[in-house]
């Protein structure tokens, strides 16, 4: 937990923040609307005697306080997917439409990929990229179980993503939910901070910059790119956006979230960031009883 002490100056009600980080999170499932409706999924869970509590800000999310979300009929039928509540946000912010071309730049294990496909009614195309074959195998198995058919999967470094297999056409939207130091997942994984080092944060920030730049480049003018992490570190959040605004043809736009959040910060340990990074949103565990998260929306301008 001492890693989190570095955020005392930027987090309101810091003691409550630390206390929330100590509490575990309930299992949450997302209903897969490619295969069923929220009503049928709820009915099937009830028939098996499984308690499912609706999450108030999103009718497709159900908390399963008794856990074990993978051993029941609706799961077997691909009606449910275990997904941390707050991680359902970036696809909603990206708001992909049926028929569009969408890139999920760091896709495995596919929770958000399959959510994107569901938001598109499985119509159009989702290209899911990851550099890790093992994690791609998990993505593939999730996509099969959830019945996604508008998906193309590539195994490559997203920074060098090639549009060649896809006719060279640019995307309408891209989701850049990057690998990060995962500080915000501490409630799900108490060991999340055990391996934390500042060198890792700095190293991964370079990768994050590269992926976001490539996503902006591969998205058409007027298209949307969403950048998200599950970490609090400004080096992996506002600093990455600052680089994109400076170096690419994209600008930050407002994000309207159904959860209580705070604006991005413009100063951190002697660095200052472009004032527009305030349009990004920080989600802290103690405000909504969720994991920690960061999300920003960019419009591609050329």
């Amino acid at each position, binding site marked *: 937990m001492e890693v989190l002490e570095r955020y005392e100056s930027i987090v309101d009600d810091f003691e409550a923040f630390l206390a929330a980080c100590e509490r575990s999170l309930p299992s949450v499932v997302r209903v897969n609307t490619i295969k*069923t409706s929220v009503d*049928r999924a709820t009915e099937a869970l009830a028939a098996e005697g499984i308690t499912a509590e609706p999450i108030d800000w999103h009718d497709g999310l159900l908390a399963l306080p008794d856990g074990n979300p993978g*051993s029941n009929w609706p799961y077997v039928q691909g009606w449910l997917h275990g997904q941390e509540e707050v991680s359902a946000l970036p696809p909603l912010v990206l708001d992909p439409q049926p028929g569009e071309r969408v890139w999920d730049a760091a896709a495995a294990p596919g929770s958000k990929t399959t959510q994107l496909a569901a938001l598109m009614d499985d119509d*159009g*195309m989702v290209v899911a990229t990851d550099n890790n074959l093992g994690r791609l195998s998990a993505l593939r198995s999730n996509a099969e179980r959830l019945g996604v058919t*508008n*998906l193309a999967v590539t195994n490559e470094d997203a920074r060098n993503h090639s549009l060649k297999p896809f006719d060279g056409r640019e995307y309408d939207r891209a989701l850049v939910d990057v690998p990060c130091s995962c500080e915000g997942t501490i409630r799900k994984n108490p060991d999340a901070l055990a391996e934390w080092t500042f060198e890792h944060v700095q190293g991964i920030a370079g990768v994050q910059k590269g992926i976001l730049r490539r996503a902006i480049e591969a998205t058409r003018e007027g298209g949307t790119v969403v950048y998200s992490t599950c970490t609090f570190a400004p080096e992996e959040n506002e600093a990455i956006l600052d680089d994109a605004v400076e170096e690419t043809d994209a600008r930050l736009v407002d994000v309207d979230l159904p959860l209580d959040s705070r604006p991005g910060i413009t100063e951190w340990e002697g660095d200052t960031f472009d004032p527009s990074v305030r349009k990004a949103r920080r989600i802290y565990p103690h405000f909504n009883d969720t994991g920690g998260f960061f999300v920003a929306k960019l419009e591609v301008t050329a």
Partner: protein
Amino acid sequence: MTDQPSDSDDKLRNDDEQLRDNDGQRFGRLPATEGDREVAGRPSREAVLDFWTDRFGVPADTFADYTFWERGSGKIWAFRGELPSPVEIEALGMTFLRTRQEHWKPTLSAIQRFGDAASDNVIDLTREQAQTFLAGEDQELAWDGDWGYLIVTHELAGEREPLGVGLYVYDELRSQVPKGRRRDLRD
């Protein structure tokens, strides 16, 4: 039907098949008809649609938005969209159908996604029978229809739901649920 599909089928590949899949990564689009065929042994889109209609009564227009692709010998994928062929990527759409053996076999994923459009060779299981099937076990069951691959359904949340593929031979239903999809939900 007496030939038995088995896990070892995938490991047996002859030279023709090597030609169809020389790097294991390439998806080739199925030709519209046999007359359009450029790759020996590759099934046509027409034959795939006929299979679903003839065997299961699934109307061809169910797949109007889909293109079909082969990667490896007789492994057919369904993709909702269009791309230039061939395409060398990790996955394209959903695994859909195995055509390597004399009797073609739909995947569990395809049955769960498209099986509700089926009218023929559909066997409805009780909850207990469905549990046995999902656990990967064979069971003796009465069935008046053809032997061969059947669409297995059960009732869930008040409706009939396609669950997977079974092989009906010699008065028993042999579960074809892949190992990774098996679950024991018996009490």
